[in-house]
């Protein structure tokens, strides 16, 4: 896969270089027409200026990017910008401009929308954020994505933009919503237990290979319903890593006969204080 990464470096940003210059240089270069995957990283002040101009620019220049199959908007670490502060926009122009797009990854969710999402070829959609708004969740649950195989949503917490409830997430658990879906991630949620309870007997499990409920606040309560579920064994993999379950629960989950990831327990009673070492 031929990748291109567009990002302002810290030093370029300090010197006053702009992201627009970077993008113009890129689409003007002969190599643009070969690029299959485009990563958009730090664009200056992502907490202040949204990705709107970038998304529009890429969409407007789609004819110069004939092989583009994957896009990542906001590929930066928290060392560059607090993830929950990244200002996004409506991604609709990308879907219209790139009918051959197969993968879209988005980091950051402020003002993120995926309105009127209807795309024949998209296989993978990932949204990494501190909290996903219910508008964006609704956009996805109304989307027509006949080829979608992998849907991974960081739902987050209300401090960082999650303003929904389990009722907003439920529509994503409908069997056949995305007929080819094999991987469903409803993760990094502050209501991870509710999600586990809701999905434990949901018919969608009959079509999935991987259920990813990792990175959230899952406790024994949610885990118990997964354990009791009659459908969970149809999965190939259940990802519950980073959780608040007890040792006992972790052991039980290990015995259900499918691959269950219970790594990275967040035990509460560990001692985290340290004496300063003088060096």
């Amino acid at each position, binding site marked *: 896969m031929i990748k291109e990464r567009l*990002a*302002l*470096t*810290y*030093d*370029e940003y300090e010197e006053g270089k702009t992201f627009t210059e970077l993008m113009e240089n890129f689409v003007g270069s002969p190599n643009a027409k070969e690029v299959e995957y485009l990563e958009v990283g*730090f664009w200056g*002040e992502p*907490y*202040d200026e949204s990705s709107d101009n970038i998304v529009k620019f890429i969409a407007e220049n789609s004819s110069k990017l004939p092989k583009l199959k994957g896009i990542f908007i906001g590929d930066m*670490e*928290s*060392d*560059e910008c*607090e993830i929950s*502060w990244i*200002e996004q926009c409506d991604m609709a122009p990308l879907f219209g401009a790139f009918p051959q797009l197969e993968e879209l990854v988005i980091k950051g969710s402020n003002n993120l929308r995926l309105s009127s999402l209807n795309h024949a070829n998209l296989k993978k959609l990932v949204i990494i954020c501190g909290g996903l708004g219910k508008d964006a969740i609704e956009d996805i649950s109304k989307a027509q994505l006949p080829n979608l195989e992998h849907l991974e949503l960081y739902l987050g917490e209300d*401090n960082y933009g999650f303003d929904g409830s389990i009722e907003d997430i439920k529509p994503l658990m409908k069997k056949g919503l995305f007929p080819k879906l094999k991987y469903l991630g409803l993760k990094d949620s502050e209501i991870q237990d509710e999600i586990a309870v809701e999905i434990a007997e949901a018919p969608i499990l009959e079509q999935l290979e991987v259920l990813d409920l990792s990175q959230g606040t899952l406790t024994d309560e949610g885990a118990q319903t997964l354990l009791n579920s009659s459908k969970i064994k149809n999965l190939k993999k259940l990802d519950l890593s980073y959780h608040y379950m007890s040792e006992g629960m972790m052991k039980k989950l290990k015995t259900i006969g499918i691959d269950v990831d219970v790594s990275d327990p967040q035990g509460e009673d560990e*001692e*985290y*204080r*340290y*004496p*300063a*070492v*003088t*060096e």
Partner: protein
Amino acid sequence: MNIDFVIIGNPENRRVVFFQQALELLNLKPAKVVSYIDLLTGANKIEDYIKDDVIIRLESPGENFLVEKELIALGEEDGWISAVEARGLEYENGRIYYPAQWYRGFCSFLKRIDDRVNKAGKRFQWMNPPGDIITMFDKRLCQKLLRDSGVSVPSVLKKCGSYEEVQEVMKETNIRRVFVKLACSSSASGICAYQINPRGDKEVMYTTVEIVRRDGELALYNSLKIKKYTSNRDIKDIIDWICGQGAHIEVWIHKETFERQVFDMRIVTIGESACHNVARLSKSPMTNLHLGNKRGNVADLNLSPDKLVGIFQEAERAKGVFKRSLYAGIDVLVSKGGHVPYVVDVNAFGDLIPGILYKGRDTYGAEIEEMINNIERGD
């Protein structure tokens, strides 16, 4: 060879043990160890250990609460608490007590030792002299000295005495992301990565500081788990407290990442050469290894050979500012994308990186060899 080493340190500490092991490996006789606590309480005198051609090594006073209390007591003048109160402090794991007063005490102690050693009237050598250690320990002094000598360091914000002033300066200079550091500390104690978002006036701080409010008072602790604060009350209290103790505030550089983790490098520089080095990789803005971060090989970080040379040269340039010292642990990070090196810290006791060898020797062995070479060359 018959060389006498004297270590001023905490005898129970692994640092002292490792140094003795290194001497043994080189077939040298063990160093005499004078404990900080004995020197501080007067139970022992440094003069008694100084004879001709002795080499004196100052080790870290850290990880010993009695010593910490005595140093705070020694810094009582213009301090927060009296010597008596200092000696009565109760041990609590991770508690940060009066770091500025501690530093004052440590400086007085070092000056006193320096004085007494000089007055002993013998030929002696320091591995690292007290004066350099005093400077390296104060990030304000040290970073200024580095900058004035042309070493690449992050830009510094002007002096701030409170949270409000920090806000003002950040707005004035349009700098949204800074590191607020306790000026006189180490091992990531009192280090905060702080950023403000002009949109909606949000702010967030990642820090090793854990703040606890008890009976209307603040107690601060070092936390191995990076804390994230978004409430103005917590952030303000922490910044005010650090400013009260003396703050060093500099621009937060976007660190380069490797496999989605940010990294910096600890480069132990001995004599004039960058020797032992290790990459420190982290998912948080603080890469210090004791916080549970991962070690890595500097050679594996996808840095070009040119950039690597530049990084090592920058460490050597930083070390060059302290010519009278034999060694220092230099922390260097490189900016994301451009790989411009920045020296963020010079650690007087930054040579504890067990298991890392350079030309077959650990840091201690390499330091001893360099010392002996210097003597043989007659420097």
